[in-house]
């Protein structure tokens, strides 16, 4: 079985970390990652940029609507994610629009640029 492990924290606190504190946290997490990667059990690991870098693509009456900022509703649940290579934000938005059009449900796509990405090992 594959599991996704999601990380939540107070963004304003994490953004108040000094470079040294941030580096220390990343190094400590990296050490845990390292063990699992060496055992051939760790897939991709990503750290997202602050939510200020986010845009959200929502289903509109005819076409999808793009809004600034992260997804703010709490009545929906986090159901899945994609990692896509895009040269510009516009390209990533186009991808999300296509997903939205292909998806019959009213799902919302929050676009979060990655700050850190480790591809990990093939695990499937």
């Amino acid at each position, binding site marked *: 079985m594959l599991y996704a492990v999601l990380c939540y924290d107070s963004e304003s606190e994490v953004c108040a970390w000094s470079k040294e504190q941030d580096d220390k946290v990343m190094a400590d997490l990296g050490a845990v990652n390292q063990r699992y990667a060496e055992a051939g059990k760790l897939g991709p690991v990503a750290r997202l940029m*602050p939510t200020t870098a986010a845009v959200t693509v929502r289903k509109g009456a005819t076409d999808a609507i793009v*809004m600034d900022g992260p997804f703010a509703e709490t009545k929906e649940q986090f159901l899945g994610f994609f990692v896509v290579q895009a040269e510009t934000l516009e390209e990533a938005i186009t991808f999300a629009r296509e997903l939205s059009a292909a998806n019959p449900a009213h799902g919302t796509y929050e676009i979060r640029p990655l700050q850190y990405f480790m591809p990990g090992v093939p695990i499937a």
Partner: protein
Amino acid sequence: MTDPGWIDLALTSARPQAMGALLRYFRDLDLAQEAFQEACLRALKTWPEKGPPRDPAAWLIFVGRNSGIDQVRKRAKTQPLPPEEMLSDLEDREADMADRLDGAHYRDDILRLLFVCCHPELPATQQIALALRIVSGLSVRQIARAFLVSEAAMEQRITRAKARIGAAGVAFETPDAMARAERLGRVAAMIYLVFNEGYSAGAPEKLDTPFCAEAIRLARLLLVLFPAEPEIMGLTALLLLQHARRKARFDGDGQIVLLEDQDRALWDRGMIDEALVLIDKALRHRAPGPFQIQAAIAALHARALTAAQTDWLEIDLLYQTLERLQPSPVVTLNRAVAVSKRAGPEAALALVEPLADTLSGYFYFHGLRGGLLKQLGRYAEARDAFGKAIALATSTAEAAHIRQHLDSLQREMAAGAVPSSAP
């Protein structure tokens, strides 16, 4: 969670919201500050034992408000203090209420807190000092050290600034859309001042100041509150792009390294990437503004893998747009640099010379003019210009940089290069 470092961090990150709410309750900066201080002391006492509250800001607002009310009563000498246990018993239940109460207000609370610091009657240095003391919570000592003044002098400066604000009165009513937009613009400008104070060429002496990081934190905070404002995206991007170059701006001896000579491997790619996303976001709004354009210019530098790959034509065009939006001789001076790269020193000098009247007291004017004259072989005039620049330098690094120019000028003259106006 008993690590005191963690508590400091929680207090720091909750500070703008808590201070903003307390200022709204008490309508007095000193009282709000004392109340917040008292709440922080209580937090340091109780959080290590009880663990951190779910919402630190709401907790601090509630405890701070009670402590402030005590203060007011004490001063009025009308009523004795309520027993401490009574207050702390209420805390958890009431904190939820404070949270609900503040959710609707906190955007304007934080904006107001920032806005009182940029009162137009306050000189820039006082605005910066006040914002760092009140909003960021830096110590007077930290601020004084960055401004290279004594702690007592800085304390006095901050006290004077607060008195001035108190006398002028603060607008406590909830602002309408127009007033909010105006506040936002002024606050953004103030945050940029804070950044520049940290970034300014005096840097080697100041490199360890937290001003730049604080300014970025404030810009991000503003963007969280106003997620759809392209100029705030531009401001945040601009600060990130400039800060990304911090390790490359000075060499081992503290000498300035010009942008074109910087080791681009030292630039912080993470910050640059985040800034580029913010610029992409801002562009979608098709509402250009000065911060967005300056960020776009900085982004063109950041995107160039080597100095030679810099798109000077595009930079020149962006500066022209900036000149139209926000005409200023300093903008024209900056454009002259792009023009010198694109069209040579003569064309650039033609832009620079008419600025002599307004910029004769500006270090960079004489520095750039000297450099252009030197490129044109007009050595005697170049030497004069560099001499004026040195006299206006505000840091040893600036002066040392110009002295290098003078040395190379001497060498070229000694080598017998014929002074002429030919490029």
